[in-house]
């Protein structure tokens, strides 16, 4: 029994996209089942790279077969999807309603900032956008486009935000590196007016109105204050796929 066929049948019957890790877990669980046959046991601890390779082979096979569906990887998880040209029939079959209204310009801007600079605090977002973002953040979180991602390691320990499970799907992106011009746009040049003090080296931006409370005790680095200073945001870890 070929590995790829087993992966195929799992993806085929799954009710949600599956990551290589999840697929490997199933192989291990089946191998550990009491009375598992040899060929089932043999797939215990299949190397992740074998699983990924098998998935890629499978996807090419399905592409070559040119059927009405194909196997794709979205946000690191694999799933069968239908080809778009069948949308007219699927819409009337599934009674698909139009998606909730498209995002407003403010919501998109906020989302873009979060996408390229995650994880990021609300204060930082507001600093970049120049306006408060309470309303749009609510919308974005509600639609799972944005999720909370732990607290920043600065005074006050403000909540940070990252793109959520719906983000990559919403934009049809394979992963965060698939963001257009990710390399360039992660490094938006930030020139800091002299009056502003950075809170933290890793912050994308300086706070708008530095107050005494926000000043960290010891993290002010004078060099960051230079006019040409840019702050690179390391590519964020993709958020855990929705389960």
């Amino acid at each position, binding site marked *: 029994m070929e590995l790829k066929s087993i992966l195929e049948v799992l993806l085929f019957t799954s009710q949600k996209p599956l990551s290589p890790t999840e697929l490997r877990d199933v192989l291990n669980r089946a191998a550990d089942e009491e009375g598992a046959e040899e060929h089932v046991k043999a797939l215990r601890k299949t190397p992740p790279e074998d699983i990924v390779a098998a998935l890629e082979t499978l996807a090419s096979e399905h592409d070559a077969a040119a059927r009405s569906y194909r196997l794709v990887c979205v946000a690191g998880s694999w799933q069968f*999807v239908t080809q778009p040209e069948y949308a007219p029939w699927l819409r009337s079959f599934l009674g698909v309603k139009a998606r909730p209204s498209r995002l407003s310009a403010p919501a*998109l801007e906020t989302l873009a900032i979060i996408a390229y600079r995650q994880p990021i605090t609300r204060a930082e977002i507001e600093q970049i956008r120049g306006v408060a973002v309470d309303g749009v953040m609510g919308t974005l979180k509600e639609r799972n486009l944005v999720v909370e991602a732990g607290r920043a390691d600065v005074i006050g320990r403000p909540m940070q935000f990252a793109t959520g499970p719906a983000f990559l799907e919403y934009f049809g992106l394979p992963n965060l590196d698939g963001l257009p011009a990710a390399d360039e746009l992660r490094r938006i040049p930030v020139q800091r007016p002299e009056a502003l003090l950075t809170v933290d080296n890793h912050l994308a931006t300086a706070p708008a109105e530095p107050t005494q409370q926000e000043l960290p005790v010891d993290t002010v680095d004078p060099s960051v204050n230079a006019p040409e200073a840019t702050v690179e945001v390391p590519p964020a870890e993709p958020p855990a796929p929705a389960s």
Partner: protein
Amino acid sequence: MSEYRVQFEVFEGPLDLLLHLVKKQEVDIYQVNLLRIATEFVTYIEQMRELDLEIAGEFVVMAATLLYIKSRELLPVDKQVAVAVEDEDTEDPRWELIRRLVEYKKFKDAAARLQERESLMDSIYEHRPARPELTAPEPVRREAASVFDLVNAVATILKRYNERTDVREIQADPYTVSEKIDYLRQLSVGRPRFPFSELFASARSRAEVVVTFLALLELIRMKLFIAVQTEQFGEIEVALAPTPPPGSVPTPSESAADGTIPVDSLPPQSPPADIVEPTPARAPDQLPEANPVGSDTETPQTA
């Protein structure tokens, strides 16, 4: 004693027991020695009786039939009653028994095949996609937005940010959007398409990247360039816009390869479905700093 009980109980009825006895003879059912079978059958019944097992009426009836057959068989051939050809009511009991055995055997075999299917069905799982969204992502997923929306949003932010930063820096900036527009137009000469990423390949500074990007958006806004993403996860390409008749929008394309529905609400004449035009970038002079984006949910933050 319990061994006998088990032995008797496996038989579904007298026919089942008979079939078992036939099988023991290892001959074709039509060639079976009915005399011997009759003797063995009656022996079983006797054993059951000795063991005080309840004997179903059907077994008793069958035993009687077999004894009758046996008694006929034991007569010399010339004394055997020749069944009258014309008497249709008279069945040869041997033939009748064999006919029933053959028929019963066939159904027993059929039942075994049904049983095989029954257990096979335990191993067959139906394809049951959970929710429409999961199996039909394109029609629902891509209608609302495209990556261009996102890029455009970034551009807006960049532009606003540049305006907010030190004026002297902007003046010192060696790159201008109009220069880059010329550069991009030159770049496209003789090359109808090139990858988005190539635009930034020669940039020497972050500022140049940003200016190049703004120039591109401006060209797209002017409908001189278009951005194309031919497949869902494919690379974005920049292409010269097809020159449309004056005053018209691009004609809808039949080759709506990816089923994308354009970002903006569908006008009567929609642009080619595989070409998504970003919302035009805001012209710099339209961008009031204090109140950048009109949204009811937002309140200007004190800067």
